[in-house]
């Protein structure tokens, strides 16, 4: 949170990048990448969400308190994913 006024040009540039990345990620879905589809799709999604969070949600300009909240959310998401998937990915009685 800040009193700083961000020029709309910043938002337009971020928006242009988001649209370009969307066209890219949809475009590559027509190329047979096999298992790499998920990797490419997630990599582009992470870049896009960083753009939204840093610029549209002002995390780049916000206080450490706000960063702490979002960091805590991501930290617990990490625990949730890591422990759940560590279980599912290491079972010897594969379900399929």
């Amino acid at each position, binding site marked *: *949170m800040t*009193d700083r*006024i*961000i020029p*709309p040009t910043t*938002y*337009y540039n*971020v*928006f242009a990048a*988001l*649209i370009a990345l*969307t066209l890219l*990620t*949809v475009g*590559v*879905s*027509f*190329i*047979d*990448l*096999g*298992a790499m*589809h*998920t990797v*490419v*799709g*997630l990599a*582009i*999604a992470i870049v*896009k*969400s960083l753009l*939204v*969070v840093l*610029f*549209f*949600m*002002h995390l780049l300009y*916000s*206080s450490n*308190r*706000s960063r702490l*909240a*979002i960091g*805590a*959310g*991501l930290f*617990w*998401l990490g625990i*949730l*994913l890591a422990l*759940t*998937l560590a279980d*599912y*990915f290491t079972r010897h009685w*594969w*379900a*399929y």
Partner: protein
Amino acid sequence: MPVSPAATAHQFDNLEQQREAATFGMWVFLATEILIFGALFAGYSAYRAWYSHHFEAASSKLNILIGGINTVVLLTSSLTMALSVHYAHIGRQRALVWCLVLTALLGTLFMVFKAIEYYTDYLDNLMPPVAFDPAEWRSLPSPADPGRVQLFLVFYYVMTGLHAVHLTVGIGIMVWLIVRANAGRFGPERYHPVEVAGLYWHFVDVVWIFLLPLLYLIGTHSLSDLHF
């Protein structure tokens, strides 16, 4: 922009503290929202890893045309939301109201497209149990288990459905903001309600940014599948 006499609520020392408290509260709420969607993403990931082939086969049948258009619609609504916060901040009331109206309309347009998409899913036999043909999946060149295909589709409906519920709440908040903005309740002294609603709106956008690749893009699409 007239400064509201009660710009600072009595429990706050000053405007800065009030804004800080409001945005911090929204970030804490969003942290819990990450975990709500996170549980679905975790479940999805486990089964996506176990049943990769079946998930990819089903994913490549989803309507990528409407999914892609909707992504652009939602990203555009995030732009108008960011501009709303900007215009509230610099006190341009007319521009603020119009950007909020655009945001609400784009959110509604997303919902209309989503409804059309669910209908095309129904026509494409992608809606178990009402419209689903197990034989279609068994007869693929590389056969997929219909039960595991259905599991993917359940994730698809629950995740896009929960996202749609969030977006509906967001549109409701926009309508409330439009009424307040039209009455001149926001300005450089007091724009945190717009900022906080914006954080929520952008978060819903971020969820969709991850739903797009995980639901629509894990398989290879064919250009001949593009249809409304």
